């Protein structure tokens, strides 16, 4: 049971391992250090990590440096161009669309993280009840996460995008008039956020299920003997017992949301009039739509700095979440 548990929470223990990292101010685990600096053991271990380290350097290290350089030049996709200092950043910061996108990015991340967490946790709790074929339902409920976004975005569009679609026809029949979901900014934002929750709740459900499986039943029995209500048990036992896993799932989902391009781009393309554009969509549009490479990369670079900072800060907080 415990080993299954350890396996099924692979991401969690990976993070827990990184959490011990010295770079975050933590201390590495106390362990005997090899006496010789280049022992056979350390050379072999280094060789085993090397392929992965080369890829990380190539796909993350090099582009991060290169993106910083390009964001300071007025080049295009072919040439680096002239050094222009912080002009690209200044163009972005004076662009109202940038701030509008930043605002929607915040909203999108908040709804994406907490909306999918509430739905996912709720379903994980429901699936723990004595229902018929829980395995089948659990698998089916994972489909929004397994089916590629290109497919589900298409299906969502078919359901809501045109006046002839099902949902607009339904609202018309209900006497709410013809509602054009993806051409009204406020509604488009709502739909994009709903879609993100729909896409992400299975991940949260998995994380919550794995965490809930690790809570011993006898605690609940003891609480029932003491007369605790279901809500009191949830607040007093379930939430504190799964607190660490919950924080980790929030952090991961935040990373997934802030870096999410395709679910917005495929559903609305960032429209109408940029209302559903997040920073990553704006960055893509600026580089590949308007061919303003410098300002576009500058947006990406700002996002990178912000998301790395936020995730490292959240990451350090994990340590402070102790089981009550």
């Amino acid at each position, binding site marked *: 049971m415990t080993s299954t548990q350890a396996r099924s929470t692979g991401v969690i223990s990976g993070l827990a391992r990184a959490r011990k990292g010295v770079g975050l101010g933590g201390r590495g685990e106390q362990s005997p250090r090899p006496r010789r600096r280049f022992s056979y053991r350390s050379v072999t271990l280094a060789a085993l990590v090397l392929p992965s380290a080369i*890829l990380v350097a190539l796909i993350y290290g090099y582009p991060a440096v290169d993106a910083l350089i390009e964001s300071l030049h007025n080049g295009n996709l072919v040439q680096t161009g002239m050094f222009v200092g912080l002009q690209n950043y200044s163009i972005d910061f004076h662009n109202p669309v940038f701030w509008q996108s930043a605002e929607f990015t915040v909203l999108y991340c908040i709804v994406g993280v907490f909306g999918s967490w509430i739905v996912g946790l709720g379903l994980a709790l429901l699936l723990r009840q004595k229902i018929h074929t829980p395995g089948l339902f659990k698998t089916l409920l994972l489909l929004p996460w397994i089916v590629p976004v290109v497919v589900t975005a298409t299906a969502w569009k078919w*359901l809501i995008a045109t006046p002839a679609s099902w949902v607009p026809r339904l609202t018309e029949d209900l006497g709410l008039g013809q509602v054009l979901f993806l051409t009204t900014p406020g509604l488009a934002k709502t739909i994009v956020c709903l879609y993100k929750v729909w896409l992400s709740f299975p991940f949260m459900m998995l994380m919550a299920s794995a965490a809930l499986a690790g809570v011993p039943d006898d605690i609940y029995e003891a609480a029932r003997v003491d007369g605790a209500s279901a809500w009191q048990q949830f607040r007093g036992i379930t939430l504190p017992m799964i607190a660490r896993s919950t924080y980790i799932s929030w952090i991961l989902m935040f990373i997934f949301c802030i870096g999410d391009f395709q679910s917005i781009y495929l559903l609305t393309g960032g429209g109408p009039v940029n209302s559903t554009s997040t920073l990553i969509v704006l960055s893509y549009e600026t580089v590949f739509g308007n061919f303003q490479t410098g300002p576009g990369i500058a947006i990406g670079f700002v996002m990178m700095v912000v998301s790395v900072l936020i995730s490292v800060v959240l990451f350090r907080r994990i340590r402070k979440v102790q089981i009550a």
Partner: protein
Amino acid sequence: MSASDMSAVGAALPTLVEAPGSTAEPPRSRKVRWPYTLAVLVITVVVLIPVIVTVVLSFTPQAQSTSHSVFTLENFSYVFRQTQVLTWLRNSLIATVATVVVAVIVAAPAGYVLSRSRSRAISGYALILFIAQSFPQIVSIVPLFVLFAHFNLNDNLFGLAIVYVSITISVATWMMAAYIDTIPVALEEAAWIDGCSLFGGFVKIVLRNSLPGILSTAIFAFLLAWSDFLIAVVFLRSSGNYTLPIGLQTFFSENNTEWGYVMAVSVVVLVPPVVVFGFLHRHFSVGGIGGSLAGH
């Protein structure tokens, strides 16, 4: 197809005693609570409407079609015969399989080191992996686009696979490490005493016992590479090199989208991941993401 796999999974679970209307059982009762089952059923159907709609429309005749039946295969026969769907399917398979194979080859040794070593350099590397995971992909794409142009890797499925492998690398390494954590070090120590090298111990003892972890990593890499849109839309230029998610976009037009064809291609896109997941879910209910996806 996958549905039958999945119902087999359901049937394989201990069949619960059917007792309609029973309430207020003692806590350890195995009796099914039908109100909860009904609630889960309704939620599942509502949640799956977009998926159901996709499948139903792919088998529904187009509006202008001459056939009057409610079921048709003509959408599929059209997209397979008249469009490049088969080429795109092949391209998607090449890019995805290459990604899965390389991701496992790279992540397994790195996961082993993360699991076994306690040195500062390695915990620093674990932190780098975490930071890499929080990089927005858009930051990597433009510099890589410029870099890959020098090596003829733009508009190339292997260039695509290199990027996919790197995107999966953090989670894949964590998954392998988490699985290898569950393999006792004592097994390797016994092999070392018998004269096995560290590397030999990794290959002969650890890798041999890591199949569930490897499969989980593979599923994860498969799902990510198969569904990617952003990397493919930037790097692929010629329609002969498109992967399915990009090819699907060519079916949309401003005024007159043929939804039957769109949904038929959508079904071609959705079947492989669902089948792969359904199949592996059935055979490997523990291990890494397989465990967290399918574990009970």
